[in-house]
């Protein structure tokens, strides 16, 4: 004889509380609290079918006197039967602060028009011109579906959309993983395509055209000229395009090899082809006097219409005898813009029972692109492509940080990281006149704080 199938838990709980003369509601701490049959806390077990895995993080990135970014991320992954996973990720990126415009400093005040073409800002003597109206919010949504495609083959397919005030990017990607040699070797093939549209406020500037506000002899003069020159500025902008676009295609071929019980190595070759508008519409190049080095004005930069990047990435991970993990990676990247870069990244995860501490060091070095010029000399013929963006010049960057976290616990796991990042661009060697005494490409320092929290439902 079967009893009715219905949940009786609540009534039974109440009845037993009445029997034991306990107060209603949540049981008092102690005696008859939660039924707790559980093992000692252990690392969060991998998600099982039917479960949600939620990963969240917030990053605060702050440069001294320049950009500050707050970037929350939320990712939810749902695990289905038969190794199928759906994952969706939302990234918000709120930027405020100033970024280098590309113009050189001068011994006098300089005034520049804002990227939007509306209004102007003034930079003091010796200061690197920073565009201080730099703030934008980016929202990026992406989703991925992964599933097995055969006994040893699996695939994942993704779509992503990223939207900023003046920018829209839509892309798709697919990755195939083929396991063989008892899953000790994995061959990865990745393909990606994205279409980006940029429509800056104030339209796309004409490449190599003079920006309307030339440097003034002092701040007051420039301010007073502002109203008078507005009309001509608008007239010039009418010739520009409202928006432009680019397409990016990526291919990645990777090989992952298990070396032994404690180590594995990954080798990736990737190729990325960008085609279209690759110029930064907000960057300018100063034109300076050949003898005294005084800026005569600045022109909008222009970059080539296509870029072919290739990189080779090698990474190794090894768990030491004490179960600490060493994670080493190196990337060599080169492109047809003449850029070469080396990146070395080292992490050491030091396990302390349920806690871990992970120091991290990263070194980056790049050589300038062929068309990088910190400034142009007045009177010389204009090059076809030119950019004074220090990020395309010779530079080194160094990151040092530490992450601390707890990898166990019934309520999920969290970790917090603090990192220091310093970029040191090379100073141009042939600065004429007064410019020689000024720092054109000062170091940029930033501090990053990140907090992650992962849990399962």
């Amino acid at each position, binding site marked *: 004889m079967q009893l009715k199938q219905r949940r009786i838990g609540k009534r039974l709980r109440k009845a037993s509380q009445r029997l034991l003369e306990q107060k209603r509601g949540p049981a008092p701490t102690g005696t008859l609290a939660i039924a707790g049959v559980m*093992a*000692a806390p252990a690392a969060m077990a991998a998600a*099982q079918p039917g479960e949600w895995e939620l990963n969240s993080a917030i990053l605060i990135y702050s440069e001294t006197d320049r950009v500050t970014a707050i970037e929350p991320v939320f990712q939810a992954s749902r695990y289905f039967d*038969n*190794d199928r996973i759906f994952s969706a990720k939302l990234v918000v990126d709120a930027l405020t602060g100033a970024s280098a415009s590309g113009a050189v400093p001068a011994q006098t005040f300089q005034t520049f028009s804002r990227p939007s073409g509306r209004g102007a800002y003034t930079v003091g003597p010796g200061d690197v011109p920073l565009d201080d109206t730099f703030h934008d919010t980016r929202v990026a949504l992406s989703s991925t579906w992964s599933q097995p495609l055969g006994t040893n083959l699996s695939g994942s397919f993704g779509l992503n959309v990223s939207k900023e005030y003046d920018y829209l990017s839509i892309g798709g990607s697919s990755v195939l993983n083929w396991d063989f040699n*008892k899953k000790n070797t994995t061959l990865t093939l990745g393909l990606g395509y994205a279409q980006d549209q940029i429509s800056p406020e104030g339209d796309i500037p004409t490449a190599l055209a003079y920006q309307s506000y030339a440097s003034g002899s002092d701040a007051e003069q420039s301010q007073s000229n502002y109203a008078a020159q507005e009309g001509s500025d608008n007239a010039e902008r009418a010739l520009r395009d409202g928006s432009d676009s680019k397409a990016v295609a990526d291919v990645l071929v990777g090989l992952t090899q298990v070396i032994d019980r404690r180590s594995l190595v990954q080798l990736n070759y990737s190729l990325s082809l960008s085609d279209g508008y690759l110029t930064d519409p907000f960057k300018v190049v100063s034109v300076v006097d050949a003898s005294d080095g005084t800026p005569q004005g600045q022109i909008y930069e222009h970059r080539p219409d296509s870029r072919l990047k290739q990189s080779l990435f090698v990474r190794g991970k090894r768990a030491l005898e004490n179960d600490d993990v060493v994670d080493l990676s190196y990337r060599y990247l080169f492109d047809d813009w003449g850029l070469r870069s080396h990146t070395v990244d080292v992490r050491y995860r030091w396990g302390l029972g349920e806690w871990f501490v992970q120091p991290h060091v990263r070194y980056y070095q790049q050589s300038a692109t062929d068309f990088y010029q910190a400034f142009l000399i007045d009177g010389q013929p204009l090059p076809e492509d030119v950019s004074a963006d220090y990020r395309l010049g010779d530079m080194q960057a160094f990151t040092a940080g530490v992450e601390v976290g707890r990898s166990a616990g019934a309520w999920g796991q969290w970790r917090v990281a603090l990192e220091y990042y310093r970029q040191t661009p090379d100073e141009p060697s042939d600065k004429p006149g007064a410019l020689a005494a000024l720092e054109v490409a000062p170091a940029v320092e930033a501090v990053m704080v990140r907090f992650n929290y992962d849990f399962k439902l």
Partner: protein
Amino acid sequence: MLRILVMLCLLHLPSAYAASPLHPAAMFDLADYRGQVVYLDFWASWCVPCHASFPWMGEVQSAHAADGLRVVTISVDAQRRDAEEFLVRQGSALSAFHDPAGTLAEQFDLAGMPSSYVIDRDGQIVYAHSGFRAADIPELEMAIKEALTR
């Protein structure tokens, strides 16, 4: 009155483990199961699909116990404690052996984790499978039923 003997053991006492159901691999002998159909499963606490296979194996064992099925599980965990903790979490009552050196695993030449074998009443392997997904269940159950009716 119910006469259920309950033993309280302490984690650090060796006697606690003596009372545990995890037997050393050396005690495993297929000949002990002659006349029965054996579903032999190699698992480890670190193997993700193994977590899903245990409830199913428990069901299969209770459904076919009377027909002569024995589900025997072999842990290849390096640490005995990890295997025991897994069994505690799973609340498993299945026969369990501990093969930290991989001696049995090597004998059976596992293709993946978990790996399972259906062994007929004469001790012959009649079916081998690696991995555990929901989609594998009908095939596994078919193999077991076939061996039971043979």
